């Protein structure tokens, strides 16, 4: 593969070889972790999932705090000009249902952010079950696959 210009990843490569300790902090059972919403490269990451009522695009109240913090972060970052909301589903249900549900959930998150005053352009897309993050037939894996991810574009 051709490489043009500087490969900034080289610095990280040396670190990657040695390996850094994971940043994840083990949580006490039954207690949600302290909410963290951060910008990492072109991705907004949060340590609590965005959850919906079963088989609907109705955001659970517990996820409002996550999205409110996302809105705060976006308000603080004037250099971010666009937000892409991605919806992904588990493999439970039919492919078509999952595609539609993931799109509706992504749209619901986009609508919540707009209603919360986010000024950046927001787009939403559903990808259904096409891009799983795990493949086990467990509740935990299905929950992880049914997710919403947020990406941003800098000015």
């Amino acid at each position, binding site marked *: *593969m*051709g*490489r*043009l*210009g*500087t*490969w*900034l*990843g080289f610095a*990280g*490569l*040396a*670190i*990657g*070889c*040695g*390996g*850094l*300790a*994971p*940043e*994840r902090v083990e949580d006490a059972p039954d207690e949600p972790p302290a909410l963290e919403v951060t910008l*990492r*490269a*072109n*991705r907004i990451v949060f340590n609590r999932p965005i959850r919906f009522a079963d088989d609907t695009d109705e955001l659970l109240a517990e996820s409002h705090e996550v999205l409110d913090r996302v809105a705060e972060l976006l308000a603080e970052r004037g250099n971010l000009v*666009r937000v*892409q909301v*991605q919806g992904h589903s588990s493999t439970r249900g039919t492919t078509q249902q999952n595609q539609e549900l993931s799109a509706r959930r992504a749209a619901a998150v986009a609508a919540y952010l707009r209603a919360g005053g986010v000024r950046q352009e927001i787009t939403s897309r559903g*990808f259904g079950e*096409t*891009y799983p*993050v*795990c493949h086990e037939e467990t509740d935990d894996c299905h929950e*992880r696959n049914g997710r919403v*991810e947020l*990406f*941003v*574009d*800098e000015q």
Partner: protein
Amino acid sequence: MAEAATHLAISARLVGTPVAIGDGIASARLVTSAEMAADDRGLVHGGFVFGLADYAAMLAVNDPLVVLGAADVRFTAPVAVGDEVLARATVTEAKGKKRVVAVSASVADRVVLEGTLTAFVLEQHVLSRG
């Protein structure tokens, strides 16, 4: 899944295989092997993880003439021989020839690499340019 239109000659053994390819998004997986080890403890050299993330990013752009121009990545956790690494890539910006791609790679639910790659879609093959 869309067909891969780029990096058709690349080694699946070294950089992984596509899992899914769509419009501006792709994922690829790599099962790490002993030849990728950097030491006798089985720590995988970061370059192989980067190679997988790079491959996923190129598949997200999925143009035969795409090349990588720059990368800004963080290695957030070690990878061991035998780990299956899943890389996901999303194009977040497309302006002219430039494509900005957000990438992350994970082993199970542990993120091992994340960052941004900048690619360019050229008008002719990079090796054909004078």
